[in-house]
């Protein structure tokens, strides 16, 4: 599978170390439809290719939005790209969040840091059909108030779509008057019915570990918790072997896993 050329339609700096690329096909082709939770392999000419989750609204797949953090060679090179530049895209790959299968339930979304990026299309998909769901609660933790992603969208969703948003930060600065502490502290008090809820969780692995514990403590069943896992990835088609997580390949059996299916390896060291 070879990269297809996509043009950067917009480059947006989100926070001091995160940015979003809006990509449209450069060859006039229609971009592939995608499901919330899936990812693309994004290639910077001559530098390399990295997996990045898709963050756009799946109902209008005219473009791919990718929000990422500047952490390695490829994302640093990506950060220097401008509107009009071309990148390569392979995808979409991977398993989606169970958005449609969760109709009729309360939805609890727990995000840590950049983990909100792969959940953004799920939020769109939920509010696109808002009446199909019970309460929708977003619990979001970041390092500081300056690290909060998608602030405009969060305000809009909260105002217009009956989405309950609770944000917490590790370190309060400036005029922050909201919650301080880890995101798991929000779970015991969050307004959802644990017996009829589905949880979508994405963030650092340690954050997801404690999130699962808190959700289970409230009574959310193992098979109603979904996690998006991250591993090194080179091919995205199950051949390079890098993304193996126990018997699974995160690229094709994940990244979104139902918790009970990985419960026996989740939390084991260095799996």
């Amino acid at each position: 599978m070879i990269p297809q050329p996509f043009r950067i339609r917009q480059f947006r700096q989100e926070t001091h170390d995160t940015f979003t690329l809006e990509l449209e096909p450069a060859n006039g082709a229609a971009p592939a439809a995608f499901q919330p939770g899936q990812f693309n392999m994004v290639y910077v000419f001559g530098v390399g290719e990295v997996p990045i989750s898709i963050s756009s609204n799946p109902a209008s797949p005219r473009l791919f939005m990718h929000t990422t953090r500047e952490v390695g060679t490829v994302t640093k090179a990506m950060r220097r790209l401008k509107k009009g530049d071309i990148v390569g895209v392979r995808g979409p790959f991977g398993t989606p969040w169970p958005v449609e299968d969760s109709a009729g339930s309360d939805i609890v979304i727990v995000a840590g840091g950049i983990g909100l990026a792969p959940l953004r299309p799920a939020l769109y998909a939920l509010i696109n059909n808002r009446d199909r769901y019970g309460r929708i609660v977003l619990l979001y933790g970041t390092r500081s108030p300056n690290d909060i992603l998608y602030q405009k969208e969060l305000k809009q969703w909260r105002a217009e779509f009956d989405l309950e948003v609770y944000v917490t930060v590790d370190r309060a600065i400036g005029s922050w008057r909201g919650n301080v502490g880890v995101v798991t502290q929000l779970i015991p008090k969050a307004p959802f019915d644990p017996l009829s809820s589905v949880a979508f969780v994405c963030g650092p692995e340690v954050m997801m570990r404690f999130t699962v514990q808190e959700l289970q403590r409230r009574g959310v069943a193992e098979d109603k918790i979904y996690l998006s896992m991250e591993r090194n990835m080179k091919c995205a088609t199950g051949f390079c072997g890098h993304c193996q997580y126990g018997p699974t390949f995160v690229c094709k059996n994940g990244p979104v896993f139902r918790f009970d299916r990985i419960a026996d390896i989740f939390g084991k060291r260095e799996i």
Partner: protein
Amino acid sequence: MKEIALKAGDTVVVARGDLQALLDALAARDYTLIGPTVRDGAIAYCEIRTVEDLPAGWEDEQDGGTYRLHRRGDGRLFGFTVGPHSWKQFLYPPVLKLWEARRNGHGFTVHRDESPQPRRAFIGVRGCELAAIGVQDQVFLHGKYVDSTYQARREGVFIVAVNCGHVVSTCFCVSMKTGPKVGKGFDIALTEILDADGHRFVAEAGTARGAEVLAAVPHRPADASDRAAAEVVSANAEQAMKRSMDTEGIRDLLYNNAEHPRWEAVANRCMTCANCTMVCPTCFCHTVEDVTDLSGSHAERWRKWDSCFTMEFSYIHGGSVRPSASARYRQWMTHKLASWIDQFGTSGCVGCGRCITWCPVGIDITEEVRAIRETDRAAEEG
């Protein structure tokens, strides 16, 4: 010579002196011949043209961390087992350019070389190796995605298998049910016999094209005594095999013992050198490297064999998922013997013993399984 029609399943006898005719028949059918040769003191798979290129009269001696060739004192052409090479290097090359791209304006165009691959005939594929090719077929051809580079190389391959008459101490194909007699998937299977009646090969056609090639080689029909002599070769090889691995319930055994102290013990010896993964005929992990030329207008993507024993293999921002040697050894062995079954419906181990021989410190996968089985924590608790 009169050509007599043969069909798949037929068995004939080809004299040692007529083996060249088999190679010639394959060459005449446009196959590039690859077979065992002696190179750098080991059996290596290289392009061959004549029977003289084969390692006549050589025998190998192997043990944990040990490999030696010596003269066996007879003229057998296949009197050795497997060396550091495996056939995977031809189907799944160690280094391969996947595509190249050239800048044009703001963008770039990607070009992939799709010129046809040479048709190759593999001469001297052992039972364990034929099984290994079957395992990689499962990985690259029968999943959600198909690897087109493997497919292009695999499609035309003609397989001349050899039933082993010689085993070394690292062989354990009997345990893995892959040998010493070759299983399914060959075009022609040879059993080499050297006795009072002379030097000859009992040759079985496994496919119609194998039969067609055999028909073009001087031969006589195999009689009951020829078949019996061939069976004795395989039976003796099986008898001679001392190493074994108990595979009963091995998947759950390893899953249940992910926290076993043995991983720490083996990690104290393991140098994480990746030799085992390089010589393994089924290991398929690779990395990709993107490069540019100095002008920055030409880029290439290369695929290279990689190993789960390196730190970079599992690196994600912040560090490696498996920083400890014990976790990396556990990943390799658990993948090979347990999670491979979940992923591809087969064990990833064919019992060829290469990982034992080529380990610089002689770590033995069969011994590691035994050690865990003897102190199976789940069983103890049960």
